[in-house]
């Protein structure tokens, strides 16, 4: 049963033990590692609150696998900034959540898929973080969000999620595969909880050069009354009838709250997913090169180092391997100008277009995903198509480093649909304010009894 931070706090010293008990019983593939000995410590805003951390965030002394065989048994000697911050705030990391291998959408986790707590025949998304919250195992989970790892999962499981502007939360210790597109975010029962945890994780970190110099402020954003909201038509293409119905209702809610909503057009929307995928493939070919069996992780037996590296790297799953090979191909001299360079140039055009739109509009909204959670056994149990299956709206916010939230906006049958709210760069507080107002007005977090 989905519960917020306050409810876990209310359970006092038993909260962590109860959370651990439930996680151990879970059979939905939500967690890779359960931190058995985790105990509540000290004070702080999250004192005694169990929190889940994605298994691509380094945790000192706790195995961190990125759901890949190539990192099996790897125990980092240091913690990521966000894991450290959680513990400093008194939170207890109770487990490491499952994810598609390295967080690459479409890749298969070495630990199997995450099942949706609302319907175990359906997927819980590319990350187990939202499922952990939806199943009431933890009130909040921290996870990176490249390609929508976090937002897509939240949309499928009916939780709120928030990824701040690029650079708000340090990536130190995050094992990212695409550094320029990735940003750590938080999923929780409510957007207020997600923002509260994001607030704890935010602030400059000298160890991450892309870290913003000032701490991001998430509260005190613009009220919805008088707010101008744009609905990019292109983000509605291919959206299922069921999800579209929930979205139409959401638009009415925003108007009821005093916002004016207008359909707009983003000329470059069609390029967002392909550009995202090309850049992610290129960057992953370099970021995943360090897995060679030399210094950490499993090492394949071989007669010479060339063979040792090749055999060790065969531990990558097939989708990840193909993504790396695609990246290598795209970065080679013969292709670079036609694909990677063009993608970087187009990325600049996409950013420019977003900037222009945010001159006239405060926020952009769209369905988070085109459809509700697919079947667990469906065609996308580790396939390349899932790469681009969700929505241009997800890729756009990544490319431009924009703050984006997703909140539940209704149901299609038993399954939740998500509403994505994107704000201008560094306008994180406006996104949070709008999402909070929407949440207060609607009641979609509540139908927890279904779980």
């Amino acid at each position: 049963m989905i519960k917020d931070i306050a409810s876990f706090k209310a359970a006092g010293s038993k909260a962590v033990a109860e959370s651990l008990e439930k996680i151990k019983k879970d059979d939905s593939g939500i967690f890779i590692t359960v931190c058995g000995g985790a105990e509540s410590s000290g004070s702080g805003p999250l004192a005694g609150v169990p929190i889940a951390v994605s298994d691509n965030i380094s945790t000192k002394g706790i195995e961190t696998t990125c759901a890949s065989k190539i990192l099996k048994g790897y125990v980092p000697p240091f913690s990521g900034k966000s894991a450290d911050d959680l513990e400093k705030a008194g939170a207890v990391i109770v487990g490491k959540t499952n994810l598609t291998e390295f967080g690459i959408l479409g890749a298969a986790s070495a630990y199997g898929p995450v099942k949706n707590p609302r319907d175990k025949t359906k997927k819980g998304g590319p990350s187990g973080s939202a499922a952990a919250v939806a199943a009431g195992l933890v009130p909040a989970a921290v996870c990176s969000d490249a390609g929508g790892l976090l937002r897509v999962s939240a949309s499928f499981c009916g939780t709120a999620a928030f990824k701040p502007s690029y650079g708000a939360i340090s990536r130190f210790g995050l094992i990212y595969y695409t550094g320029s597109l990735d940003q750590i975010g938080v999923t929780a029962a409510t957007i207020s909880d997600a923002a509260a945890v994001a607030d704890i994780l935010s602030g400059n970190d000298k160890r991450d050069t892309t870290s913003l110099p000032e701490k991001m402020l998430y509260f005190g954003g613009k009220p919805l009354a008088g707010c101008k909201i744009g609905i990019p038509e292109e983000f509605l293409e291919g959206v299922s009838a069921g999800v579209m119905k929930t979205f139409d209702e959401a638009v009415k809610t925003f108007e009821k709250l005093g916002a004016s909503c207008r359909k707009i057009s983003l000329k470059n929307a069609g390029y967002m997913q392909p550009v995202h995928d090309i850049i992610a493939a290129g960057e992953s070919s370099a970021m995943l090169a360090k897995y060679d069996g030399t210094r950490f992780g499993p090492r394949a037996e071989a007669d010479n180092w060339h063979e040792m590296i090749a055999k060790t790297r065969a531990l990558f799953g097939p989708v990840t391997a193909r993504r790396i090979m695609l990246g290598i191909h795209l970065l080679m001299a013969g292709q670079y100008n036609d694909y990677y360079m063009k993608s970087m140039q187009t990325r600049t055009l996409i950013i420019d277009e977003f900037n222009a739109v945010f001159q006239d509009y405060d926020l952009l909204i769209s369905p988070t995903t085109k459809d509700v959670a697919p079947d667990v056994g469906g065609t996308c149990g580790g396939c390349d198509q899932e790469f681009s299956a969700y929505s241009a709206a997800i890729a756009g916010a990544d490319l431009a480093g924009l703050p984006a939230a997703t909140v539940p906006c209704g149901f299609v049958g038993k399954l939740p649909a998500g509403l994505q709210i994107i704000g201008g760069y560094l306008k994180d507080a406006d996104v949070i304010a709008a999402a909070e107002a929407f949440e207060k007005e609607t009641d979609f977090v509540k139908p927890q009894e279904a779980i």
Partner: protein
Amino acid sequence: MAYENPDGVMIGLEVHVQLNNAATKMFCSCTSDYTDSEANTCLCAGCLALPGTTPVLNEKSVEYAIRIGLALNAEIEDETDFFMKSYFYPDLGNGYQVTQFDRPIVKNGHVLIEGEDGELKIRIRRAHMEDDPGKMAHFGTIEKSTGSIIDFNRSGMPLVEIVTEPDMRSAKEARRFLDKLRSILEYLDVFDGSREGAMKADANISVNVFNGKRIEGTRVEVKNISSHKAVEKAINYEIMRQKDFLRKNKPLVQETRHYDEDRNVTVSLRVKETADDYRYFPDFDLVPMFVGGRVEGIRAEMPELPDSKRERFVSQYGISDAHAKSLVTERAFADLFESVAAKVDSKSAASWVADIVKGELNYRDMPITAVSSDDIVSIILMVSKKEISEEGGIAVIRTLLDEGGKPADIVKAKGLAMAADDFIAAAAKEAVAESPDAVADYKGGAENALNFIVGKVMQKAKGKADARLAREMVLKELEKM
């Protein structure tokens, strides 16, 4: 006379300079001085490229790169950035090297060297920043090894790679370029050239004339040569090999070769059938650097460099250009000269420091710190006051280096003090009186006879007389007669 370059030799160098004075490595706070440390002890998670580590640029290394650029008379790029250069090698933790690509921090410079036929300008195409990988050692030879070990202490060391145009025409010119470059770098305080791996060079060599006719030569790269002496030898070997191939009409291929110092040969490492594809692309972990605004501040703090110091020494101290050239090669000698020249006649200071002290130190392979300027000053003063002879002065320096001690004590202990003038005058009088035959011979025009009398004086003084003074005194005595 113009240098003909009969073989049409063209040599270009790529010199890797470790900025080991930068205190820390390029992207972390590990020490940049691992010389005396055990393998794999000067490193952190970042040096090992553990997952989740992120690079943090050492600003000092950027400043050093700018200093180098200014010293090479080059342009400094206003906005510059890092690229990832991908290749798999066990000592390259990340699987990519962080380097620069089309916007190197330094470009279009030059260095003046003494060429085969006078001053020669060696153009610098570019100099860029990059990080050093770890170091791999093989059991057996590089071609056939039974196992390898890796030391990651070097991983992440800040490097500047300086790339010249193919402006050198002989191995000697290449060596002179490297000597000059090393001298400049030491002046800049960016590196300690005495540490292992501080400077390494790759040489691109082609022979472009055959049978007196211009031909399209084949460029061969000889990699990772570690000493200046080895560079000269490797290039000479490679020129000889290419000429030999041309003579025998054997095909030369564009390839990368390794110089085997023990055997003094180059051996083929790999043939370049196609250009290596390192898949350069912008490093998204490091934001672009805007360094334009820092250049003037750094320029204002630039030390005086060898060429201008040499000119100043000649004009300010009136010493010979040969002495000035020798003194400025190493900044420490130039500094030693200046502190000595502040207290004694500058020409004596130059010849004592450049000819004697430098020679004695080199002979013993001792560092300049083995002598103090005060000691040299007191030796020069003793010589000029004729308290000791010039030979005595050299003996003092030798003793000082070999056994230690203070000049005055050494003079006393070794009995080097010269006899007083009146003693020599008296000895001269005696010697003249005792040598009537020689005096007669001398008066008769036999100049040689003088040496006999002077020898006698020296005998009486038991060698503690200045020979020139003894000669003067004898002549004075003879005039009286």
